[in-house]
């Protein structure tokens, strides 16, 4: 039996903040011919792993950019970890991003720094205490299975290993959410499976993972939630299809 103080009234459960919530979001670019996104509504709950799928240009990256405040919606509301993106202040953006990890298809590593230095860089620029940096870097390198490659430069690593370094960098600040934009797009099948397994492990440890990909084979075999975009609209949400709230 739970202690009375821990009981949350049913009316409040519905209002608990989601990790990410999109409400009727539209995004139009001034130069674009049509809207990049239209009428997008969904939410991502704690501990969730979801795929964002769709063809190139369907709006996957735009949705991710809205989540980490690289873009603002033209209309509608986007909330990430309680931050209201349409009205987020410039000084709040770094605070939001320190609680998020983002990885990309092209890894975005600094080529003139070693794996460990790339990861340490993410801690240094956010003002982490100098004495805790080495152990935190070692811990995430271990977590992504690259403990022996700390001193390797990106050019000395395979694509899969470079992506692991990028994931380690995203994880080093203990983010609540990991956003991955086509993280396996440049990888062969074996490396793809390895990176996917790593992302699942990260999710199992409690981090929300949202992965944009057009690797349908991987998505179908996963059994995870799927959000499918077509021409800027959300055409399928497996959670809604199974009776969940979209």
């Amino acid at each position: 039996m739970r202690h009375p103080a821990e009981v949350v009234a049913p009316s409040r459960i519905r209002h608990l903040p989601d990790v990410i919530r999109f409400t009727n979001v539209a995004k139009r670019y001034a130069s674009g011919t049509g809207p990049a996104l239209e009428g997008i509504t969904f939410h991502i709950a704690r501990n969730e792993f979801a795929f964002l799928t769709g063809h190139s240009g369907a709006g996957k990256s735009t949705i991710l950019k809205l989540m980490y405040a690289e873009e603002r919606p033209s209309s509608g509301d986007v909330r990430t970890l309680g931050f209201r993106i349409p009205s987020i202040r410039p000084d709040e953006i770094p605070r939001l991003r320190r609680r998020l990890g983002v990885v990309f298809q092209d890894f975005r590593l600094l080529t003139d720094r070693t794996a460990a230095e790339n990861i340490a860089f993410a801690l240094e620029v956010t003002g982490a205490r100098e004495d805790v940096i080495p152990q935190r870097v070692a811990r995430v390198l271990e977590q992504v299975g690259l403990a022996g490659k700390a001193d390797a430069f990106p050019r000395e690593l395979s694509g899969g290993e470079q992506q692991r370094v990028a994931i380690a960098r995203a994880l080093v600040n203990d983010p609540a959410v990991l956003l991955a934009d086509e993280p396996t797009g440049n990888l062969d099948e074996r490396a793809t499976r390895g990176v996917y397994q790593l992302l699942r492990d990260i999710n199992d440890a409690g981090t929300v993972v949202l992965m944009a990909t057009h690797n349908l084979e991987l998505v179908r075999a996963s059994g995870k939630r799927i959000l499918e975009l077509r021409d800027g609209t959300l055409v399928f949400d497996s959670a809604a299809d199974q009776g969940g709230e979209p």
Partner: protein
Amino acid sequence: MKLVWREALLSFSRTRTLSVLSVTTIAFALFVTGLFGLVALNLRGAINRIEERVEIVAFVLRGTPSQGLAVAMEDIAAFPEVLSVRYVTEEDALAQAKQDLVEFRDAYEDLQINPLPPSIELRLRPGFRDAAHVGEVAERLRGFPFVEDVRYGRDWVERLDALRTLAGLVGGAIGLAFALVSVVIIGVTIRITVLQRAREISIMRLVGATDWFIRGPFLLEGALKGLLGGVLAYLLCLAVYAGFKAQGLGLGIGLEFFRPIHSLAFLAFGTLLGLAGSLVSVGRHLRKV
């Protein structure tokens, strides 16, 4: 702060060729501005020396009582424009004429009477040596009953005025143009370094570095490059100046170099340019990425 220094110095060493190139570019842009500054400084010095010769001479009626004259001279010395007043007797005037006009020395020797009247010679304070002020003082002198005539070489003073205006205008315009060109060149140079590090900036933003944290190393790097460029440009200017002196050029007109305050201003200008160039370039980039 330590990280800012480390990143700025790392960037210097990692992009050594580009850094050397940008410091050199900044140095040459500042060198041209510095050379122009030297020319302007020496030109102003020359004009000042010419100005010092501006003199008003009031010829005094012969037989003016010396007591009245002494009182009047005190009044004249109290004019705000007046630096010094000197009474020149008839004898002094003749002696001076003999000394100055060597060709006429014999003619002066043959004179039975001294044709030169006594006079009051006035020198004006700096800032009052233009035609308007000189004319005004001359007019006031004419008001004294013992003054027979006032001379100050109106044409000459007016020409000096024109020269001063021209030097000011041309100097200002060319100086401004040189400074602007330096600003543009330095801005472009720094923008190249910033562009080269666009990836780094985008990663810093992505992992949640604040804008000021991102700017820090770039601003420091820009300021250091500006300072280094300024030091190099200063040394180049010094070399050119020393070269001119060694050749014996300009000795007659007393060639001048920057005073310490000018030198400091020059280095501060370089540093500020580097800083401003970085601020603009990074700012633009922060909005763009």
